[in-house]
């Protein structure tokens, strides 16, 4: 309790609140602009967050993250174009409601469902993460290695439509993560004699490359969707039209709670993310109520509660195990690491204050997200008509500055650009980016754990399968691979 009041006192200062609010607004705008993702928003803010105190930095990042998740619902409802993958299932009923002239209520319903989703997932995060961390304290190197392999397999199997391509990307990520000094023997690997590469491939420029440069390069090809937005009718929306009535809220209460739980559960599973959660929540709602799909509030609230449920869910493995739940979790993990905070069970044991600070910031971000989306909705709709000829160079410039800012090296910017160009061509050939990022992050976790295990086992690798937790994780990994191949085969025939 004492620690909580201390955190609240520290967090409630003007600087933190300003960065949090600013982050939320930027997040909503980025989320609302089709093509720009929550991960991109988070990535672009890391360099800024690096210069802020821990709590303030987390406020900024979580503000951007939650804002972008909610903001995506604006174009989904008004235009039938999701701002980012978080809102792909909001389109159906949301856009139908707009056609019926109920855009305001759909937007308001999305806000309220998102708030519930966020808060329910936060509560679960607060209660579950410490328990999972406690169990994880019992993990030794073999369990950690097995967990990392499992996480990588899951993300390769769910991101994108192609498991083989996902696996290739995860392998490439691991290969890239091996560049630099081997941290157990100090032997340089794949450095080509360059001093610059001794530290390995810098994670943040790589992230900015993949998710900012690469994403924008891909967006240039789809300029038409950007221009379409200009045609929005600037419907007059008063604040009071946005709120669904208490009766409507009560009617949809079960859907909201259920979808929030689905979101949190899916988000907490390493490697999975919002794009899956929203569809599961939506089809659950549709199964129960046949009218879903024809443009009713329930069909908007289900996916919106689910995608904000993912926000707290994804932080459960990210914080408790140090293994991110999805790409957004991976970016938050990297942001913490460069601030000198190593998420994982030991964080819960020795630095519980940092953990609580993150929880509290997530709570505040849930509130600012609702407040700004409600108050600023008219402005955000106008933002959608920013011409892409200003927007695209602006984001590219911001990405350049961002990759430069951390270590003030032009070479970092060049790395970011290289990853951006590679990321662009990879997505052109439908190779998913998330497994590459996870490989980059998990490679340096998995490798030393593997080698430590082998030392522990005195070179006998069969012992990996004699320990119950690592054995079950390997079985789960094998099942994931088998199931994914079987499912894809069935889909094809």
């Amino acid at each position, binding site marked *: 309790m004492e620690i909580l009041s201390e955190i609240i006192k520290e967090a409630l200062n003007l600087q933190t609140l300003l960065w949090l609010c600013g982050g939320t607004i930027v997040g909503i705008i980025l989320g609302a602009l089709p093509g720009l993702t929550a991960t991109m928003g988070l990535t672009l803010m890391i*360099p*800024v967050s690096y*210069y802020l105190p821990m709590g303030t930095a987390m406020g900024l990042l979580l503000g951007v993250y939650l804002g972008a998740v909610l903001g995506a619902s604006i174009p989904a409802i008004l235009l039938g174009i999701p701002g980012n993958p978080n809102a792909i299932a909001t389109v159906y009923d949301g856009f139908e409601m707009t056609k019926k002239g109920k855009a305001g209520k759909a937007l308001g319903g999305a806000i309220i469902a998102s708030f519930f989703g966020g808060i329910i997932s936060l509560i679960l995060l607060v209660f579950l993460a410490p328990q999972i961390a406690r169990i994880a304290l019992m993990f030794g190197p073999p369990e950690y290695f097995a967990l990392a392999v499992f996480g990588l397999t899951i993300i390769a199997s769910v991101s994108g439509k192609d498991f*083989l*391509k996902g*696996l*290739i990307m995860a*392998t*490439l990520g*691991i*290969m890239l993560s*091996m560049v630099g000094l*081997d941290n*157990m*023997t100090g*032997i340089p*690997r*794949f450095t080509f004699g360059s001093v610059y590469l001794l530290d390995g491939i810098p994670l943040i420029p790589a992230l900015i490359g993949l998710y900012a*440069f690469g994403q924008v*390069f891909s967006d*240039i*090809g789809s*300029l038409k969707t950007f*221009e379409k937005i200009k045609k929005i009718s600037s419907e007059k929306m008063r604040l009071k039209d946005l709120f669904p009535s208490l009766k409507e809220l009560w009617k949809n209460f079960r859907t909201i709670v259920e979808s929030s739980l689905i979101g949190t559960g899916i988000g907490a599973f390493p490697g999975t993310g919002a794009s899956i959660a929203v569809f599961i929540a939506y089809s659950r709602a549709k199964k129960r109520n046949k009218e879903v799909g024809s443009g009713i509030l329930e069909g908007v609230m289900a996916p919106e509660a689910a995608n904000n449920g993912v926000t707290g869910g994804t932080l459960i493995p990210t914080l408790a195990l140090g293994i991110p739940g999805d790409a957004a979790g991976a970016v938050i993990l990297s942001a913490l690491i460069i601030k000198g905070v190593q998420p994982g069970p030991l964080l819960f044991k020795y630095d519980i204050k940092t953990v609580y600070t993150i929880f509290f910031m997530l709570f505040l971000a849930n509130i600012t997200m609702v407040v700004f989306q409600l108050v600023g909705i008219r402005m955000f709709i106008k933002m959608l008509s920013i011409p*892409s*000829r*200003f927007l*695209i*160079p*602006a984001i*590219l*410039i*911001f990405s*350049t*500055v961002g990759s*430069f*800012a951390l270590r*003030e090296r*032009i070479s970092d*910017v*060049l790395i970011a*650009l290289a990853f*951006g*160009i590679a990321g*662009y061509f990879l997505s*052109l*050939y*439908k190779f998913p980016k998330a497994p590459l990022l996870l490989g980059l992050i998990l*490679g340096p976790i*998995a*490798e030393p754990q*593997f*080698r430590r295990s*082998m*030392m*522990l*086992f*005195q*070179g006998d690798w069969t012992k990996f399968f004699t320990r119950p937790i690592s054995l079950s994780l390997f079985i789960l990994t094998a099942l994931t691979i088998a199931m994914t191949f079987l499912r894809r085969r069935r889909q094809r025939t």
Partner: protein
Amino acid sequence: MVAKNVVGIVLIVIGVAYTIMASRIPSRAVPGDPGPSIIPMGAGILLVILSVLLIVRNLRRLEERVNVTKKTLFMILLTILYILFLKYSFTLMTMLYSIVGAFILKKSGERISKWMVFLFSVIFSISIYLIFSLLLDVSLPDPVMERIIER
């Protein structure tokens, strides 16, 4: 045939080269430690296997054709130039970049106000420079602006 499998072939070449390089990493004797080359070699070999699978699959299934738009290529080229010349003056290069970028990105036949583009790029580049150098203490490479501010 070759064009269709270019990605797979490139990946195999990368995988083989990587594996060979990994096998040459010197090992240091730590009892029980499989050494710094084992995981990279494993990953390299795995990549080769997966890429072969990709090619085998492509023989049966046709991959979609991809097309790169001219605008994207120009923007990528412009960004490369921008970053290479950045060290001479951040603000100046950013201005030029956003002006040229705006003209590359405009739709064909669209008329845009040159003054708007110019105004936007000047305000944007100077404010980014000021925000990062004054608020966050990042020294962006800009001898020109430094001289102006020092005065």
